[in-house]
């Protein structure tokens, strides 16, 4: 336990944990992973002690000090470890990155969940349309760029890419393909997954989709 001892408490399906893993890989920060396996019935004492407010993963420990909330963690990593910055340099660029972080965090995962967590056809349809409307603005801000900040994979890319592991499940139950609606956004997903830092940090979408099938069965939706 020396200086810059970094640990990350995770759960395999959490896109919020996955994004922190991508950030750590991009910044080449060595860390130890502590996996929480049972968030539904039995959270560990360490988790409850280090995140008493939300009792959620991810939690980063830097020299034993906990930092909670994934976007907050990634921002912290960029400031505490300045090499290989994830944020743009100028204040305006940083404000744009934070704006899209807030947008992504508030909207994407809940909207996706609404697609698979119901059996009612009209609810599924409404949820799908809402999800696509949210994606429209993301596609709009990406435009023709390789990445959200330009030609460099950075903060906004990292926040969104973990969430895309859940997209095939949304497409399955919403009966749509993202690439039919927003081909450039779909291309961004493919381009980002080609990065080793991403492919080695993210859980496979197949595993996530199987989890969704199991959750639907648990709630009597299959």
């Amino acid at each position: 336990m020396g200086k810059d001892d970094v640990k990350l408490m995770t759960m395999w399906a959490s896109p919020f944990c996955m994004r922190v893993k991508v950030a750590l890989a991009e910044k080449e920060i060595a860390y130890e992973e502590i996996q929480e396996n049972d968030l539904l019935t039995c959270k560990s004492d360490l988790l409850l002690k280090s995140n008493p407010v939300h009792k959620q993963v991810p939690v980063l420990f830097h020299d034993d000090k906990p930092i909670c909330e994934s976007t907050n963690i990634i921002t912290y990593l960029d400031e505490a470890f300045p090499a290989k910055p994830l944020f743009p340099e100028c204040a305006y660029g940083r404000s744009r990155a934070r704006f899209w972080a807030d947008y992504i965090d508030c909207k994407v995962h809940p909207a996706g969940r609404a697609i698979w967590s119901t059996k009612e056809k009209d609810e599924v349809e409404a949820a799908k349309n809402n999800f696509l409307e949210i994606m429209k603005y993301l596609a709009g801000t990406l435009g023709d760029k390789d990445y959200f900040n330009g030609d460099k994979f950075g903060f906004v890319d990292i926040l969104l890419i973990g969430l895309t592991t859940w997209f095939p499940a949304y497409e399955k139950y919403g009966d749509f393909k993202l690439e039919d609606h927003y081909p450039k956004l779909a291309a961004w997903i493919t381009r980002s997954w080609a990065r080793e830092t991403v492919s080695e940090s993210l859980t496979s979408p197949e595993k996530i989709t199987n989890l969704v099938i199991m959750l639907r069965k648990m709630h009597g939706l299959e």
Partner: protein
Amino acid sequence: MFKKSVNKGMEKVKLFATWSSPFVKRIIWALKLKNIEHEIIYEDLANKSPELLKYNPIHKKVPVLVHNEIPICESLVILEYIDETWKDAPRPLLPKDPLDKANQRFWAKFSDDQVLPSFYGYIMKQGNEKEEAKETTLAHLKRVEQLLSEKKFLSGESVGFLDLVFGWLAENSRPLEVVTGLKLFDEDSFPNLCAWRDKFLEVPAIKESWPDQETLIAKYQEINLSKGK
């Protein structure tokens, strides 16, 4: 879409606002603390101006800060932008240390995602929902009370980012108490919070901002947040 043009020495700062938004007020306080000259444009949310819709097409909400024609939206984003752009004028709102910053940002989200919704839920809801919102808010406020132990302000020795973020609580709790008769916390159970509220409201930049406490009471009475409703 928006091209940044910097005209040194002629910074033009506009803020799209409403009198009642807790998210707007924190920006006004920040601009005053930093001595940044600005123009406030009050919006009628039932009839939003074309300018607001142009500057915030996605959320269509206030506050929007427009700096030399470049818009910045979302109050926490705006606060950090102000702090980074007008770095030391006269002092930073956020601490330098990344861990201290991370803690303040965590509690800022706690204010906006947890405390504020449950507080206003307590004010506005009825019956069982009102009771539940009350219990939830009290639990949240206990955490804030703890944050203030051995500290003058939430941000430390002087007023800063986290005080501005929680400022809605300091500013609105007494006026709403007067108008609705609903008192959520008192000096006996929340001594730190009450002491912080008094100190915060005495900070000149806060005290001199409109609307003041009396005006807030009058305005809340006008919109009929009456007792027992």
